[in-house]
């Protein structure tokens, strides 16, 4: 459908990638860990290696969680835009198929949040 208006309605998307000064917007969520109330939004360089995302970005974002240090990264299940995904740790975000405003989710089997509550 499209908007009903009295005049030609301009389409002005506010969050196109050019607005982010060379970065792209990436959304990240750690499933079943709602101590972090919602997924997070980060502006990241498209060339950032996936390994750096895990080692730096995720540690900064989620390091306060008591289960974070117990994550076995070799067993983590990744979802990219809702689909199962096997990241290449040495490749950059873009080369991993992670686009502007992509959603990266990760699941950590066996770690079910504080007292198993999904928190």
């Amino acid at each position: 459908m499209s908007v009903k208006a009295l005049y030609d309605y301009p389409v002005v998307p506010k969050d196109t990638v050019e607005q982010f000064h060379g970065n792209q917007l990436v959304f990240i969520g750690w499933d079943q860990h709602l101590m972090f109330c919602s997924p997070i939004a980060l502006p990241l360089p498209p060339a950032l290696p996936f390994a750096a995302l895990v080692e730096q970005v995720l540690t900064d974002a989620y390091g306060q969680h008591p289960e974070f240090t117990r994550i076995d990264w070799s067993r983590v299940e990744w979802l990219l835009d809702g689909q199962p995904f096997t990241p290449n740790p040495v490749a950059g975000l873009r080369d991993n198929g992670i686009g502007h405003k992509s959603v990266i989710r990760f699941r950590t089997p066996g770690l079910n949040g504080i007292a198993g509550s999904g928190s």
Partner: protein
Amino acid sequence: MAKPMNMRDKYNRMTRDLGWEPSYQPKSKIYPQIEFEGIKIENWEQWEDPFRLTMDAYWKYQAEKERKLYAVIDSFAQNNGQLNITDARYVNALKLFLTGISPAEYSAHRGFSMVGRAFPGVGAQVACQMQAVDELRHVQTQVHTISHYNKYFNGFQDFRHMHDRVWYLSVPKSFFEDAQTAGPFEFITAISFSFEYVLTNLLFMPFMSGAAFNGDMATVTFGFSAQSDEARHMTLGLEVIKFMLQQHPDNVPIVQRWIDKWFWRGYRLLSLVAMMMDYMLPKRVMSWKEAWEMYFEQNGGALFEDLARYGIRMPKYWEVSVQEKDHLSHQTWATFYNYGHAAAFHTWMPDAEEMAWLAAKYPDSFDRWYRPRYEHWIAQEKAGHRFYNPSLPMLCQTCQIPMLYTDMDDPTQVVYRSTEYQGEKYHFCSDGCKDIFEHEPEKYVQAWLPVNQIYQGHCGGATVPEVLNWYHLRDGQDNRDYLYSEDRQNWLRWKEASSQLETT
């Protein structure tokens, strides 16, 4: 001498003289906005104004109410009424109402002024004009209350500036801007029917009863003054819907879609009320769940049964709202606790007694999913590590609320919905918000999402202190945990001083 006219005669005389036939210009040029939404009106004469209030009667009645209201506000100020509230934590509920909703009253004033001009029918013009004046009065009386509380508590000092900038205030702001930028029929369906008629009891009742329960007579007074207007607004809301539905069968699907959209937008906005009821009132009135059952499931259910004969059904996704009632307030409060460093009011963890109340009101959800999280946060706070989320949240493109809502089949799983429009990805917290976007994508692609704007460099800088400065939010005074707040320190000092006065 002519016989004095009664109210009905006066109203007829007033409106008859307004409804002349133009001779210099065609009506389509005088009322250019009236057709593009697709609503067909055969006869504006059939608009019934159930109140038939004339301007002089309106003026007299409202002036009387204002005299009483300002007398109470003055006496509240002179007697240091703010010291009689249950606890200074309560003031944070007020901060949320006065910074989030009062500017929205002003938006409603502007909206009704605009639609009053847009409608050709005299009855509709008069009703909209009066409501526009009401809304302006409401924001004025509320500003007086802001002015009083601002002398003693943090967070009130720049509410207008904050309304245009602060991340969570973009939720009510964008709600009203969405309505104001629609056509006149959609605006009046959104505000008069979906908001005023279907949902307003869930906004006013909890805040005003909460104020009464917690000793805040200044708020009770503006609340009561506004509430007698709300009755008229609600009647207008229902009248508008029935009028559109009776005028032409083609109007039914258009109106139904607006009801679906604005129910969902209004319900999402009420997340703020849900957390206020369950967490921010030191003395609670009822739980969010009980309020939703009473005001939406029972009263709203009866309303939509009544509207069935016009071809209208319950708003789409109402079932989701019922499923979410066990979770909504907890998830919203947890979000503000996460971002308490970036809010212009204080957050805190409920104490043991309050947790027992929550567990009793929410036997199916609280102990299982929320208590463990809170106990962890409390332990962290006691160890000197009060938890704040170090990252900015992903927002829903439509309601602009962080993506905090979970799947009711698995309450530990965040709901992710997305779509593409012209090659660009968009994300949503729910099917309700996604449907709204997909119906009018051109409108929502331009949403000013506070988090994305920060990253684009439009909000004062890249760090939290710079953004807070840009918000005019004073770091360390207006924000963070209530435990360490200046508000709490002042409150304890005042209470101690007044108890010493009593014992001497």
